[in-house]
């Protein structure tokens, strides 16, 4: 796979793009794409040939709302054992994070995957709550675990979200004029290319599903530029070695069985119709929100403000880039994050910080 990093080929693609004399704005929705763009210095290279790329809402931890963080903290404080992906633990809630709750002595544990949480529930008698965060890449694994009917002391606080409705929202809000979308390779591994087609058909937007090596992204950009030049709007797949048009039918089936769509809020967005996932009727018994309704009652109907001065919302809508936030690398750093975009390894603020001079100077 190393040839997907071939420097000579990369130069050739950039040269092709230069010859096309472009002035386009693209959006991707994936932290791993952002990492590739920044780590390999592709962003300035592309800017130089007239291609501006924004991240958009492609960071599951970042789009998780303050209310969901507060729910997790409330359950930790009510004595449940909280199991969570490492990226979530430092995200600031209103006053504190799950990491702070852990320091105060509450039982918060980082897990690598949902199976670790199920195994833990097997071993201990306390209630084990898994904080389910993630897009379609992650959700099938959670669905498999739930469909196997885990122990009765296991439950799920679903914060899962799906990508296509968010793309629809971005396009319809029209804050950024987009010439093309780079769709996330691993979400697409699961859902395939078809769920994106309506965006090309109804909104005339060229799309490409791209992989994560530098050549994948550069070629993805080239394929979009070509579509635009030729007046086309369709969904191309660049990441063919992993993505099939039909996706992964086994994964889709188990997700459909275990989850139902729900209207949910995303950080920085209003409620987006059918963009969230709740457990279906057959699996309600594993729903932490129902099981611990009393512990969570206090949070119902409350308003949660965004951290003061934090512009994550605009970053997530692709309206600004991280460097445009006045707090970036000043009051907001990975050791003292103000918003989730500086916490998650997929947040564009944290990615920019990691590869920037600020990090070296430390």
């Amino acid at each position, binding site marked *: *796979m190393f*040839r*997907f990093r*071939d420097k*000579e*080929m990369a130069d*050739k*693609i950039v040269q*092709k793009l230069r010859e096309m004399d472009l002035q386009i704005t693209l959006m991707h929705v*994936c*932290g*791993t794409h952002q990492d590739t763009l920044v780590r390999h210095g592709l962003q300035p290279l592309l800017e130089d040939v007239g291609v501006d790329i924004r991240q958009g809402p*492609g*960071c*599951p*931890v970042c789009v998780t709302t303050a209310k969901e963080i507060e729910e997790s903290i409330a359950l930790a404080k009510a004595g449940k054992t909280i199991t969570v*992906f490492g*990226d979530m633990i430092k995200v600031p809630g209103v006053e504190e994070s799950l990491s702070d709750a852990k320091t105060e002595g509450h039982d918060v544990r980082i897990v*690598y*995957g*949902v*199976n*670790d949480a199920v195994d833990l529930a097997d071993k201990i008698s306390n209630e084990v709550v898994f904080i389910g*965060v*993630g*897009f379609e*890449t*992650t959700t*099938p*694994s959670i669905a*498999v675990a739930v469909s196997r009917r885990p122990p009765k002391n296991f439950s799920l606080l679903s914060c899962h979200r799906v990508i296509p409705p968010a793309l629809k929202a971005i396009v319809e809000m029209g804050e950024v004029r987009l010439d093309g979308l780079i769709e*996330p390779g*691993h*979400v697409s*591994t*699961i859902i395939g290319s078809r769920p994106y087609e309506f965006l090309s058909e109804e909104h005339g937007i060229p799309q490409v599903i791209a992989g994560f090596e530098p*050549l994948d992204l550069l*070629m993805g950009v*080239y394929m979009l530029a070509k579509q635009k030049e030729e007046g086309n709007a369709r969904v191309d797949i*660049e990441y*063919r*070695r*992993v*993505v099939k048009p039909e996706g*992964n039918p*086994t*994964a889709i089936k*188990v997700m459909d069985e275990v989850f139902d769509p729900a209207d949910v809020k995303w950080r920085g967005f209003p409620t987006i119709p059918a963009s969230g996932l709740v457990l279906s009727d057959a699996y309600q018994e594993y729903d932490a929100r129902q099981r611990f309704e009393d512990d969570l009652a206090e949070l119902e109907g409350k308003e949660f403000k965004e951290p003061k001065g934090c512009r994550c919302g605009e970053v997530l809508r692709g309206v600004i880039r991280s460097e445009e936030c006045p707090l970036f690398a000043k009051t907001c750093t990975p050791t003292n994050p103000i918003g989730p975009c500086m916490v*998650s*390894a*997929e947040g564009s603020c944290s990615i920019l910080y990691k590869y920037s001079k600020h990090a070296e100077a430390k």
Partner: protein
Amino acid sequence: MCLAIPAKVLEISGDVATVDFGGIKKEVDVSLTDAVVGQYVIVHAGFAIQVLDEEEARETLALFDQILGGNVA
């Protein structure tokens, strides 16, 4: 979090496979794929989410080469 990494399947027993991430061995759940021993799978959060198609990888590189009109690949 959508980071997913290719690993080679060494052994399969039921839903669990031992895979090799460039020297590091781990057990992953392969129930979402029809992976067989010897193939590469894309692994995310302890689950294989797809089999990597090596033939398609070669074809993609050949296609890049054709588009770029060189003999780089």
